[in-house]
């Protein structure tokens, strides 16, 4: 049997039926991971425009000064904060710490992420 | 053909044990079962590894079978048994009176018992009714019904037996003289019909035995007699708790995993395939159970189910029928050759039932092999699924 998850099965990770808190944590973790990976490549491509000279880069900076891109940045920040905090949660429970309160840890993770989201949203859009 | 071929109808306790016995004696064995392993009475049994004490007064033949087989099963299949013993407890004056017959009966059936003072019993089982008047220890046990059947089936399979599960026997193949030479099957997994031929067909369908013999124009005096079981979500005793009284409703509390199961009742039905739960009997089990272990009232009901015993008897009813088993050679009773029926009995005596059936099959076919199931340890129940 294969050791590697088959790509054709990946959508099943996000199967939202009937899930418990732990599964939502898992689904959000996968989604944020995929999003951050995508962003990393995007980021590298954008940095690549530096090689095409100052004008090209300034031109690019010009285009991203619109609310849609700012919203995108906010999503990146929120994804990174959630992924990092949930990583701590998973790390702790992996060593047997807080297994019985894993749901509460997930809710705390969500709460902190929400506070951060609001804080940055206010800063970025004001 | 070098090996005689036996078809066994039914993969309940008697079917799988007979498959195991015949496979050990060198038979080519095919088991045909309409559902999964132990889906009928066997799976739904109370799970009590009987010491025989329950029958020691009125039905000593069954009692002796139970204590002998109890000791054998502890040896050959410990992987499915909680071997913690049991208690018979007296709560009333009439229980105490029955106690005297009980002591005599156990002695006559060589069932080892030991009398305990009420305080000693309460020390062993703190959740017993503190008003108990007397108690006896007895070598009862608990088994897991499905895993007991699977252990026999796995061992039979390792010795070459084939299992056709979810395959219903729709009719018998008869020769010109009305003798049975095989079965007509319907594989419900694939929706295909087929035929299987054999030198002998063993009808091990328990309470359903009459439905098979009817196909050959033969009959057996089986009285399907269901009873209720109620499982509770707490384990408040570590031993089987029996009421010291003649067999009656709700007289046994059995610990199993994290649960306790209280049973049972006794009444007759005609439609066997679905026996509905009678709600008044749930209340009765709670009342009777709480007399022995009052804490049951604080436990929650986890499951309720009905199991249909295959009692043998004509004329008498319910509790007074002997709990022993019987093998029928339909050549002798109905002039139908090629068909043997095994029914009656108890889960605890499955191996002995198989031995008697295999003896009859061997005698009919002129095979001289001896029974060796008493000393053959059984494989892990998991091997049934792991073997190809």
């Amino acid at each position, binding site marked *: 049997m*294969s*050791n*590697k998850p088959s790509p054709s*099965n990946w959508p099943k*990770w996000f199967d939202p039926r009937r899930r*418990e808190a*732990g*599964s939502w*944590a*898992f689904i959000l973790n996968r989604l944020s991971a995929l999003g951050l990976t995508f962003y990393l490549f995007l980021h590298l491509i954008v940095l690549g425009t530096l090689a095409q000279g100052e004008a090209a880069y300034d031109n690019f900076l010009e285009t991203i000064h619109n609310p849609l891109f700012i919203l995108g940045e906010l999503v990146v920040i929120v994804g990174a904060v959630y992924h990092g905090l949930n990583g701590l*949660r*998973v790390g702790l*429970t*992996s*060593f*047997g710490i807080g*297994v019985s309160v*894993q*749901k509460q840890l997930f809710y705390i993770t969500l709460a902190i992420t929400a506070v951060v989201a609001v804080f940055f949203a206010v800063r970025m859009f004001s | 053909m070098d090996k005689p071929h036996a078809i066994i109808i039914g993969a309940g306790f008697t079917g799988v044990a007979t498959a195991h016995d015949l496979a050990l004696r060198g038979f080519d064995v095919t088991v045909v079962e309409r*559902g*999964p392993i132990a889906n009928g009475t066997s799976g*739904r049994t109370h*799970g009590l590894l009987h010491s025989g004490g329950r029958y020691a007064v009125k039905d000593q033949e069954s009692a002796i079978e139970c204590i002998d087989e109890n000791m054998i099963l502890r040896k050959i299949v410990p*992987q499915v048994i*909680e*071997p*913690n013993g049991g208690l018979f407890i007296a709560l009333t004056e009439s229980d105490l009176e029955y106690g005297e017959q009980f002591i005599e009966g156990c002695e006559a059936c060589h069932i080892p018992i030991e009398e305990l003072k009420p305080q000693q019993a309460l*020390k*062993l*089982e*703190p*959740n017993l009714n503190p008003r108990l008047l007397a108690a006896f220890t007895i070598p009862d046990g*608990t088994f*897991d*019904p*499905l895993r007991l059947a699977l252990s026999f089936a796995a061992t039979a399979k390792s010795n070459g037996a084939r299992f056709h599960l*979810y395959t219903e026997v729709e009719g018998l193949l008869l020769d010109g003289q009305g003798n049975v030479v095989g079965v007509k099957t319907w594989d*419900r997994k*694939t929706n295909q019909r087929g035929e299987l031929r054999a030198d002998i067909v063993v009808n091990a369908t328990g309470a359903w035995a009459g439905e098979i013999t009817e196909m050959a124009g033969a009959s057996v005096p089986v009285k399907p007699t269901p009873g209720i*079981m109620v*499982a509770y979500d*707490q*384990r*408040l005793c*570590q031993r089987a708790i029996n009421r010291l009284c003649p067999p009656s409703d709700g007289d046994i509390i059995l610990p199993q*995993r*994290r649960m306790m*199961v209280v049973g049972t009742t006794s009444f007759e039905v005609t439609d066997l*395939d*679905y026996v*509905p*739960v009678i*709600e008044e009997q749930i209340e009765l089990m709670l009342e009777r159970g709480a007399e022995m272990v009052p804490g049951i009232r604080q436990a929650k009901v*986890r*499951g309720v*189910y009905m199991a249909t015993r295959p009692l043998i008897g004509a004329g008498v009813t319910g509790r007074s029928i002997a709990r022993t088993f019987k093998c029928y050679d339909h050549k002798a009773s109905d002039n139908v050759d090629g068909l043997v029926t095994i029914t009656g009995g108890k889960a605890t005596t499955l191996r002995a039932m198989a031995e008697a059936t295999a003896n009859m099959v061997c005698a009919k076919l002129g095979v001289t092999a001896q029974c060796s199931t008493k000393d053959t340890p059984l494989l*892990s129940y*998991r091997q049934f*699924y*792991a073997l190809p």
Partner: protein
Amino acid sequence: MINEWKITLKIYRQKGQEPPHYDTFELEVNPDEYVLDAIERVWAFRDRSLTFAHACHHSTCGACGMRVNDVEKLTCITPIRSVVANGGVLKVDPMRNFPVVSDLVVDLGSLYQRMDQVGHRSVLPLGEEPAPHPAAAPAPEDLQALRLADCIECGLCISACPVATTTPAYLGPAVLAGAQQHGLNGDLKLLELVDSDSGVWRCHSAFECTAVCPSNVDPARRIMDLRRQVIGARIARFFGRG
């Protein structure tokens, strides 16, 4: 028994190589009955070709695991009123992550084989898997008495696990919990088996196993505990004391 509710049972059907479909059955039920009772009645009175696994009808054997309205349930102890309302639809599917044999029956062979591989004990001393209720605690002299293990090998946790869905080689929650119950105790073969990318490290902490377990096994906690044991064993071996 009074059948006061009307429900629609929507049952997954698959025979041989034919494509699967759902059959629906209108049924009068008592809401206090169990889902398995309703399924058994469909077989007894409506459609004799329906196949489903069951044996003990009180949660000791683990044969009747299915997905009821998409949630893994041991159908013999799942009251109908807990999963559907009067007039509602009860959808019943076979468990995921196992090959379907026919209709609601799946092949649990891989689970049983792996449970043997990790040495899950089917009976063990009473004291090892303690009672959850203080009143049910055994007397001290009974701690060495034996009882059947908590895990009934029903496969529900493996059906619910999102990692088992994508990675068939993953040993799965029940099996890792079985390894934890057996204990590493210097068993090198078991250590190699569970300390692998199909073992404890493949778990991604979705905790679905514990959510669906009908038998108090808490596989997620046991997997985490096994990780601790694995690291302990590795450190001990690194310093030459394993």
